[in-house]
């Protein structure tokens, strides 16, 4: 059974097309990650799926019903930029939302799940940014929902808090909760999501498992080098080109960028070819980094927001220093 279905959903705000024929389905128990640049339509899609906005065209089904018909106790939502009532303690805040359901979880158990037991009696405005966000996540968990929508749940949370929440979401997924989350953190989508959808300009450009998307759209693994100069007396500015012209790199695609170069199609066993080329050209370098494509490369390639190489996350720093 598909827990969430959208068919050719269109939503316009005046002349702006927020969603342009988006179709997707999320199976029961699946974790679906929605990534995309700001203004891509992620929040609008979440609103359409939860029934808090009506699509202009298309159909939406949530647990095989219209979003506004489905039992409120079956769904949970953490809206983007959610600011709950202040001057309530974390416990009071969670208890307030728990009080809206007939069969809610114990607020203290929810607070324990989101790691706020020690801060349960602290007022919301006195919590740290990460604690505030975790309290907000807690409000979406009070009814133990079958389908959970989380719109950028870890924004503003420190790395440790983020990983704690990831663990919680993994536990929920393991228990069969269907989760749709939007995020700007590719690492988060890659770790949590069974499938990922990339939304840009209101269109769903690609959907697949993280591995499928990386294989198809991530590009090649590569080595990035920042040169420091040339030991035989040539102009330092020529160093990248000298290295690029060296024989060991004949089989690779090489791109010179300022004082650096990018060698594409380099597997981990072929890094030596790059080092040899630098030695052959007597080029000194400050850093040499090997990177394999990841979801961020997919995002950048498909969204058109940047170049896959220039912003990609290095996976393995091989060496740094001068080559003599």
């Amino acid at each position: 059974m598909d827990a969430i279905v959208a068919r050719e959903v269109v939503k316009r705000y005046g002349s702006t097309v927020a969603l342009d024929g988006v179709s997707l389905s999320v199976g029961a128990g699946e974790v679906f990650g929605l990534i995309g640049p700001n203004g891509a339509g992620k929040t609008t899609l979440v609103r359409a799926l939860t029934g808090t906005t009506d699509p202009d065209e298309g159909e939406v089904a949530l647990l095989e019903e219209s979003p506004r018909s489905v039992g409120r106790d079956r769904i949970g939502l953490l809206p983007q930029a959610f600011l709950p009532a202040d001057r309530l303690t974390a416990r009071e805040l969670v208890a307030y939302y728990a009080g809206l359901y007939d069969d809610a979880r114990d607020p203290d158990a929810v607070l324990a799940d989101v790691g706020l037991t020690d801060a349960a009696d602290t007022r919301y405005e006195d919590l740290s940014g990460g604690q505030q966000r975790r309290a907000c996540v807690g409000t979406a968990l009070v009814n133990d929902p079958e389908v959970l929508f989380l719109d950028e749940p870890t924004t503003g949370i420190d790395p440790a808090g983020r990983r704690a929440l990831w663990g919680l979401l993994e536990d929920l997924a393991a228990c069969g909760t269907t989760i749709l989350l939007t995020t700007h953190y590719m690492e988060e989508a890659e770790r949590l999501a069974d499938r990922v959808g990339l939304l840009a300009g209101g269109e769903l450009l690609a959907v697949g498992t993280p591995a499928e998307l990386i294989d198809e759209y991530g590009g090649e693994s590569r080595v990035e080098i920042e040169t420091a100069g040339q030991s035989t007396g040539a102009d330092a500015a020529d160093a990248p080109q000298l290295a690029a012209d060296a024989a060991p790199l004949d089989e690779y695609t090489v791109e010179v960028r300022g004082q650096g170069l990018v060698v594409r199609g380099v597997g981990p066993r072929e890094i030596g070819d790059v080092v040899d080329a630098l030695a052959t050209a007597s080029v000194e370098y400050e850093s040499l980094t090997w990177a394999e494509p990841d979801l961020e490369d997919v995002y950048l390639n498909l969204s058109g927001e940047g170049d896959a190489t220039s912003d990609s996350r290095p996976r393995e720093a091989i060496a740094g220093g001068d080559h003599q």
Partner: protein
Amino acid sequence: MSRYARVRAASGAAWRAFVRRRVAVFFTFFFPAILVVIFGALVRTGAGGTGLFVREADYYVAGYLAVVVLQTPLSRVSSEVARHREGNRFEKLATTPLTRAEWLLAQTLVNVVLVGVAAVIILALVTASTGASPALSPALALAVAAGTALFCGFGALLGRLADSQDGAITAANAVGLPLLFLSETFVPPVMLPAWFRPLLSLSPLTYFSRAARTATAGEGAGIALAVLVALSVGFFLAGALAIPRTD
């Protein structure tokens, strides 16, 4: 039972959030007190034709009550709607069992308590400082509750139209001030131009003034109270429908 539990949870949270705003609490009750002191004890009609008031002290009790019945719910609910919208709280609540009418009912209950306490303070002060002797009755309590509900609904409508908390407060003041003086509160109709007097009936606050005045005079509340209750139901429903989900 479920509806009761939801409203209780929402009103409890709203109450706690309010009473912990010490400045807001202080001025909620200080404002009517200072109003009575200024108008009832200082500006009132004095011997030899001094002062601004032309009627006996009992006439103005309804006006003092109208101030809190109008301003407290109008400004609080309109700004609360704006605050909820800015924080995406309505989007969140739309996915819970709490309906918009229940949310507004919870806010109304909190305001009824606040206005009720403020009304008691006003009645005590006018009795002690102005020489008025207002009669207390269930009709007066009903008028205060109905008037508060009416302006909670009105506040929700303003909150829907305003684009920010500041805008909501400004709108509440802009609407509230003319209503306050053109609703048979402090300015008797005889002091207004004849052509304008029929327009007084268009102000919902007029019906509160009439109901409260007859009730404090110990004469029941009559038709004005019935109209006030009907208006409060209408404004409450309109306000509940006006509360946004997201867009």
